[in-house]
């Protein structure tokens, strides 16, 4: 499976996660919707859509949780006819990320949650020491620039050129 990360320390933990959890696709993003890493996607437009929707779902679920429970919900699970979706936040020293995982009947929610916990531990272990948390982009212009740069990094060709469809 194709696994690519904007920051290289993310790649190995994410690869292990999708292998163990038998995920079809996965994307790690900043809560703002900035993609940090992806697995299994072949087109950048799909990653953009997934990140935007995941960020929105995460924000909505978080607010619902705070209104009901006083704190954000831990994770979301949607079960479709063929595919299922698990969406949850990851708190690590580098900051908060959101992980969207899509799986089918070769895996299960239990397995995905089990290996999601391991992903969090692996990311904590792999993250560069003493690095400042990534600041969230404040301006819309910065967001678009960063998004395009991240997508280019994830989908660059063998010579480093951008291969954006």
């Amino acid at each position, binding site marked *: 499976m194709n696994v690519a990360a904007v920051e290289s320390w993310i790649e190995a933990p994410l690869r292990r996660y999708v292998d163990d959890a038998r995920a079809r696709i996965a994307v790690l993003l900043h809560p703002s919707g900035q993609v940090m890493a992806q697995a299994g996607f072949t087109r950048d437009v799909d990653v953009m859509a997934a990140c935007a929707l995941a960020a929105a779902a995460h924000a909505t679920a978080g607010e619902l949780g705070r209104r009901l429970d006083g704190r954000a919900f831990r994770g979301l699970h949607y079960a479709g006819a063929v595919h299922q979706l698990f969406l949850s936040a990851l708190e690590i020293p580098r900051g908060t990320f959101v992980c969207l995982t899509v799986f089918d009947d070769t895996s*299960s*929610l*239990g*397995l995905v*949650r089990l290996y999601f916990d391991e992903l969090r531990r692996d990311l904590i272990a792999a993250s560069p020491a003493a690095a400042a948390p990534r600041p969230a982009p404040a301006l819309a212009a910065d967001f678009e620039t960063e998004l395009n740069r991240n997508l280019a990094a994830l989908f660059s060709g063998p010579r480093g050129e951008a291969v954006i469809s």
Partner: protein
Amino acid sequence: MRSRLRGAVERLSRQRGVRASLIVSENDGLVVDSSLRFGEGEDSERVAALAASIYRKARLSADAAHLGAVSFLQLDADRGRLCAVGRDDLVLVVVAEPSANVGLIRVELFKALETLA
């Protein structure tokens, strides 16, 4: 239903050598009910997800090989054994010591399965 499930789990956990007994949803790999021996350190969610995965894989493989439905399953490893029986979407799982009497555990598992029917 809940009391029947709890009763089944507790009877299984009283067998000698049993470290954990669980009722698991095969589809989701999630715990329905569980009983863990104090201090054994078993993680019920972990056991549930992985045991359900093994049982499901065995069931699908046996079906594809035209062997029919799986009833009892026993996995032996260096540091323990895992036994499981299933019906519909529920799987009864026992994790036991290597020295546990599996024959007896098997009988109790089938008895417990009947109470869930």
